[in-house]
């Protein structure tokens, strides 16, 4: 029983990061119908920034807020350079565009930094544990859970209460109608990228605290996790994406602890396989979002 609670807390910690990533992906899907396979590049850029910031002597307290800004700016640049030009294009074109961005950013880092991973110090104090009864709690997990919940709450209020949030949701609901009603498409899409950048930035801070390294492919794993979580949630739904993130985190932790060690190396593959099966048996995702095609 304690073991299970322990694992649930671990899973929520992991899932919180996924939820932030998935929410950013779902927001962009909402306004552009684009599945952003380049979302992980925000993490890659953040990782290299932290590496550089460490090398000039800053510490985590200063680096964390800078990373959020870096991710935000990167998101806006990517939108401006690539996604702006394929708005409204067929799904195939948009998918390939996001993969193109993904590969191009990777290549830039290979070219100008190195193909090898660079290490930077992890904040050891945050991985300290303390005991509550039978439980061994990591400060890290608790921080992730608390910050994630606060971020989600702030995002919720932003979307529900502000003009920006309402136009964003309107655009996500029906982009063309929202435009006809006077919502500026450029501005809404840019703000969606800003929001997804901030969410990814917060996720990046936690991700990098754990991994402590920067490399051209550093964004691949978080990107896949974010996309998968958003898919579990049915893509169109923001709350679904958040739930999908937590579900994915829990499933991973449970798999890692339950799988026999001989196939523990396959955890990612098994998670991927489960998601593929989810698609086979429930194509609309865990939470179904109705897409009725008018004929």
């Amino acid at each position, binding site marked *: 029983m304690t073991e299970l609670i322990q694992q649930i807390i671990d899973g929520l910690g992991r899932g919180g990061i996924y939820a932030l990533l998935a929410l950013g992906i779902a927001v962009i899907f909402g306004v552009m119908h684009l599945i952003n396979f380049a979302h992980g590049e925000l993490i890659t850029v953040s990782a290299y920034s932290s590496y550089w910031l460490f090398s000039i002597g800053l510490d985590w307290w200063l680096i964390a807020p800078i990373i959020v800004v870096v991710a935000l700016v990167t998101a806006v640049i990517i939108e401006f350079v690539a996604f702006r030009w394929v708005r409204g294009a067929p799904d195939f074109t948009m998918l390939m565009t996001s*993969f193109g961005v993904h590969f191009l950013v*990777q*290549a830039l880092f290979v*070219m100008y930094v190195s193909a090898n991973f660079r290490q930077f110090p992890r904040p050891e104090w945050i991985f300290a544990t303390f005991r509550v009864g039978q439980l061994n709690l990591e400060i890290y997990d608790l921080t992730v859970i608390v910050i994630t919940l606060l971020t989600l709450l702030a995002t919720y209020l932003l979307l529900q209460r502000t003009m920006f949030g309402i136009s964003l949701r309107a655009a996500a609901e029906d982009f063309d109608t929202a435009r006809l009603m006077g919502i500026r498409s450029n501005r809404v899409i840019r703000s969606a990228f800003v929001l997804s950048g901030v969410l990814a930035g917060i996720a990046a801070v936690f991700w990098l605290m754990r991994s402590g390294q920067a490399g051209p492919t550093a964004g691949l794993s978080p990107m896949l996790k974010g996309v998968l979580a958003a898919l579990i949630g049915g893509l169109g739904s923001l709350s679904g994406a958040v739930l999908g993130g937590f579900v994915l985190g829990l499933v991973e932790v449970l798999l890692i602890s339950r799988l026999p060690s001989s196939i523990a*190396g396959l955890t990612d*593959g098994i998670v*991927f396989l489960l998601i593929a099966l989810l698609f*086979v048996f429930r194509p609309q995702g865990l939470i179904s979002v109705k897409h009725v095609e008018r004929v």
Partner: protein
Amino acid sequence: MDSDPIRHLITPGLGSLFLFSVIGGVFLLLSGDDSFSDLATQMMINTVVVLGLQIYIGNTGILSFGHIGFGAISGYAFAIFAVSPSRKLIQIPNAPLGLAEIDLTPFQSGIAAIAITLVIAIIVGLALSRSGARSGSVAAVVITLALLFVVHEVATNWIDLTRGGKTGLSFSPFGGNTLQGSYPIILLLFAAIAVARLFKETRAGRLAQAAREDDLVARAMGINPAVQQMIALLLSVAVVAAGSAMRVYEIGSISPRLFFFDYTLLTLTMLIVGGRYSVTGAVAGVLVITAGKELTRNLAELDVDGFNWFFRDGLTDIFLGAAMLGFMIMRPAGLLGDWEFDHWLLRRFKGAKSPVPVSKPTIMTSAQLKADSVSVHFGGFIALDDAALTAKGGEVVGLIGPNGAGKTTLLNVITGLVQSDNGTVLIGSNSLTGLTPIKIARAGLARTFQNIRLFPALSVRENVEVIRLVAHRHRQGKEMPSTDSLLVKAGLWDQKEWRASELDYGNGRRLELARAAAAGPDFLLLDEPTSGMSDSESIDMIAQVRTMAELIGAGVVVIDHDLNFITGICDRVYVLDQGRVIAEGSPAEISNNPLVLAAYLGEKA
């Protein structure tokens, strides 16, 4: 294609031969030079793999990241069979099923590898069709990515079988063998070109392309995309598997890295830059990207003052990423679009034939279309309430009513796009109730759509021809006019080679009607064929609908708002209001019916 499927394949066949000669010549020239001979072999292998991708991605529009995963399966199977037992005892002594002792020739190994890969492809194909894969669908991306990842992880972790990720399996000392200039690779290259080019023209290929263009319309016209997609998948996987086995043989070893993201990116970029709809394009893509890759690799080694920020390692990766991104933004159809070598041959050596339309009206259908007590609700909204409709062959039945009266819903129920709560739909004595749109279309109903839906990237001719193919198989009893005469009757002969997306609105409507007629239905169901048309255009449409219906011997059910059109064309009219049929009769009777006037003009009845 109508009468003689073999003759139809002659030009594409000749085109493939031509393409093969040209590309083979290029490779041969390259092979002659020692410094390029390795590269030429590599390019041939890559061409085979990219053609394999083209068969699936080009024809179905489904983006697959899994094909290189299939390549990995085939590559490993090939290596495990073909590496000599003595080497295997050193590298993978604990291989399961006594695989370490097996000793096959490279040829046998290749066949076995392709067979094993195909078995897995069938499973993946079933999963894809269960997930409702279609052009641009996310489900397909996820499932195929999952395949790529799972294969990679298994290859990395199942050390007993694959020797893991670090060292990989290797052939040496007999790995010194090379395919340079050997006949198997040349034969395979030719086979891949011919298979890919001819598949585009086969029935399965054509139907897959139609579903790529518009999945819903394809289904509503009786095409079952899952079948065509499976055929395309198996064919493409076979080609990719063969190419991958050759790749492993040529390199002399295999490790998980060999068939993962890098190779996926390389081959996909080649396909997309060249033009995924075209076999010639796929080949051109291999040439262009290989040339660019070699060039950037050499540039990267340059040492020019002031340009060292640009001429450095990694330039090749930038080139690949930028090529993919640039083409998606500026020219998403790639260099060649859907142009093929033989299109040029055809135009060069054969003048345009003038039409010889031989078509006499077909015998009118004796079947009766009958929808009875149909009710549908969407949430709390009652869209149809006990609605009924009957139409006979040779008759034009109108369906009118205010907006939201349920006209399109009734049409959707009849064609199976919407499930009714209760009620029955019969054609003759066959019940259509609860059948899928595909089966209903095959039973003899064809429809058009309120907002025109053509197969935009296909030519006008192909739009009609592809549905003609469906009719050929599923409407066998029916005597049918040829594609040519349908095009002439629709007044589209001069535009037959145009892309459907290039037609103006009126011609687009006519094409949609001709395409529905090509399905050889007993009944044509038309959803607002004159919406957005001028008065004179809609008068033309009356003649157009009558001609087509007579030509194929079908009855007509038509929804429209245009009263001139309705009174001009209909023998009988049903009036729907708030989901119920409130009147039925000749146009003259209807226009004097007080209930109808009330519904339309808001007068008290």
